[in-house]
């Protein structure tokens, strides 16, 4: 009960601090608004993206070039991109400069022959070239994303060397019929080469690129991104308040009252958690009102995700503070971690394209799991089932960091 009193006191104190309020609310909303302006309509309605003018220059005579062409001309993408085919790359690029096109995709001659392993298992490297309109903001990103996903699917298939025709055919509803045929072709090719076949690396999420008729709402990405980013800042700042209380002797005075130390620590961490919860909730409500952001259709999923995101962020903040030498160090570490986590974790840009160690590092951040969850709800209109991994990971991060922080604070303050 006293822990709750401490938590409420901390929250009240935090909400009376104008500088803190600016960091918690004004900054994320203003930055999101600026980004939203840069992306176009701020009227609140989603900005429709359709019929992006794109030219495919397919100089490859093999299956892979045909696969790119088939996917790009598939009915799934018909509304999203308006594809033309040309044979002259220079002429196509000239049309970008003329403002007629947003992107040109060039499949070089001999692409399939170079990339697909021969009977000895040897293969080469070739690049798909993508030229985009530098004056456009969103459409090049979308086209690049589509091309990257087709390329990634092919790469995965080639590297794993395992997709049999039947398996690939099984993915057809997700990948689209063109990719299904591609899988069958590659599977047959590889099997004839007596390669050691392993499991498929095809990423089924890739298929979602093929969904069309979607409209792009920049706020649906940037508002959660900024909200999580600034949440991390305020959670680190909030956690630091326990060291400020030690400096001002209010912590010692608390410990001179008949209140158990663990309850004081719980109250302090609870105050940070409560502040974060209010911060995120207010940001969600204000973004809905100001920018018309839709936070999805799963109220339960959203509530659980918000609670666990704040839980993980405040737990991490408490842990870093508990292990910091002093208040200043906690401040520096907190700011640095917030920035790095924001950059790696997808608060500023999508993490879909991350690979290798960067992708692993990204998955070590609270932001990444929170953003995966929020985007599943806001952009993909998913439900509770789609954010299970996110909420599980966030719950684990929060639990572990809270326990470690409590133990460290207990050791630090009981002298």
């Amino acid at each position, binding site marked *: 009960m*006293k822990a709750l*009193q401490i938590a409420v*006191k901390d929250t*009240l*104190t935090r909400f*009376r*601090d104008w500088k803190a309020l600016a960091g918690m609310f004004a900054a994320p909303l203003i930055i999101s608004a600026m980004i939203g302006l840069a992306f176009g309509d701020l009227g609140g309605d989603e900005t429709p993206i359709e019929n992006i003018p794109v030219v495919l220059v397919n100089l490859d005579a093999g299956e892979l070039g045909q696969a790119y062409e088939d996917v790009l001309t598939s009915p799934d993408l018909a509304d999203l991109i308006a594809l033309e085919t040309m044979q002259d790359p220079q002429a196509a690029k000239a049309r970008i400069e003329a403002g007629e096109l947003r992107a040109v995709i060039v499949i070089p001659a001999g692409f399939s022959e170079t990339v697909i392993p021969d009977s000895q298992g040897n293969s080469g490297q070739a690049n798909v070239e993508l030229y985009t309109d530098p004056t456009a903001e969103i459409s090049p990103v979308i086209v690049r994303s589509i091309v990257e996903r087709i390329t990634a699917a092919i790469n995965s298939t080639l590297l794993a060397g395992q997709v049999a025709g039947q398996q690939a055919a099984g993915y057809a509803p997700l990948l689209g019929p063109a990719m299904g045929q591609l899988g069958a072709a590659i599977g047959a090719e590889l099997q004839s080469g007596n390669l050691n076949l392993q499991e498929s690396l095809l990423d089924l999420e890739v298929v979602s690129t093929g969904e069309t008729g979607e409209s792009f709402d920049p706020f649906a990405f940037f508002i959660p991104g900024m909200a999580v980013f600034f949440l991390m800042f305020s959670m680190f700042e909030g956690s630091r308040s326990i060291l400020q209380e030690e400096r*001002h*002797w*209010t912590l*010692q*005075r*608390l*410990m*001179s*009252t*008949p*209140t158990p130390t663990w309850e004081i620590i719980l109250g302090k961490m609870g105050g940070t958690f409560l502040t974060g919860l209010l911060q995120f909730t207010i940001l969600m409500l204000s973004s809905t009102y100001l920018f018309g952001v839709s936070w999805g259709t799963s109220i339960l999923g959203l509530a659980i995700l918000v609670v666990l995101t704040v839980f993980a962020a405040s737990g991490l903040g408490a842990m870093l503070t508990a292990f910091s030498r002093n208040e200043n160090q906690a401040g520096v570490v907190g700011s640095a971690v917030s920035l790095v986590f924001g950059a790696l974790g997808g608060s500023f840009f999508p993490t879909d394209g991350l690979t290798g160690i960067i992708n692993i590092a990204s998955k070590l951040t609270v932001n990444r799991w929170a953003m995966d969850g929020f985007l599943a709800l806001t952009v993909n209109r998913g439900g509770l089932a789609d954010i299970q991994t996110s909420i599980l990971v966030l719950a684990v991060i929060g639990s572990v960091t809270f326990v470690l922080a409590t133990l460290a604070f207990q050791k630090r303050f009981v*002298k």
Partner: protein
Amino acid sequence: MSNPILQAQNLHKRYEKVHAVQGISFDIQQGEIFSLLGPNGAGKTTTISMLSCLLSATEGDAVIDGHSVGTQADAVKRVIGVVPQEIALYPDLTARENLMFWGKMYSLSGAHLKQRVAETLEIAGLSDRANEKVETYSGGMKRRINIAVGLLHEPKVLFMDEPTVGIDPQSRRRILDTVLELNQRGLTVLYTTHYMEEAAELSRRIGIVDHGKLIALGTQDELTKLVGERDTVRIGISSVNDTDALLAALTKLSGVDHAALEEDELVLQATNANAHLSQIIGAIGAAGGQVKSIKVAEPNLEAVFLHLTGRALRD
């Protein structure tokens, strides 16, 4: 003198490189104001921190109202009030909000809490400004709310650690009057200070602390008898060529027992000082010094400290 509410027994606090408190023992009688007098860094705050259960004693124990500080901290915390040297308040909250919060930490609630908040605001003389944020208060007002927090749960013993540091004389006077008034109502007070006048005014019994040790303990009369009939002479000087030679010359004078230099002031202890002033001034002149001021004080606590340590209390 047979009803001690607090008994500190051989308290020690050792840190890695510092032995901050070295075997301090004393009793405080119920209804008494007991002062611990000593310079900064003497170990007063460490002692109070151990008695408040904020620090565990490396050795020794204390019993407060029948409860061991070492093993019954929760019971001890219910009978003590703590007024730290720092202003341990939340500046963003009003005085009333601060008191309400701290009252809840002492398990007060409901109408009783509101009543105690009103009463302590009255004691602090800040009822009319109770709804203003503490950050808008003067230093003296903050000190008074700092004391009020320690009184909320009607403790049996109040620990006050240097409660007048850094405030104006008027606020200081008010705080001293408050302490006396609370004591008249029956509150036992442990008061630490480095101001000799405060200890002398508030307490009948005083413990003098230096370098973590209790170097003297007794009533004011008992303590001043330690220095006999010696007066303390403070002489403001300038232009002395060789201070060591001057101090040596002064201690050789008849009736002068101690001589020390504090910045530009000589501090001497002398029997019947007025009779020896001409000799003292002559010695200063011989050393090339000029006398700027002279003050002679009869035996007091400062003289006791000087007598016991060879240093002035303000060092």
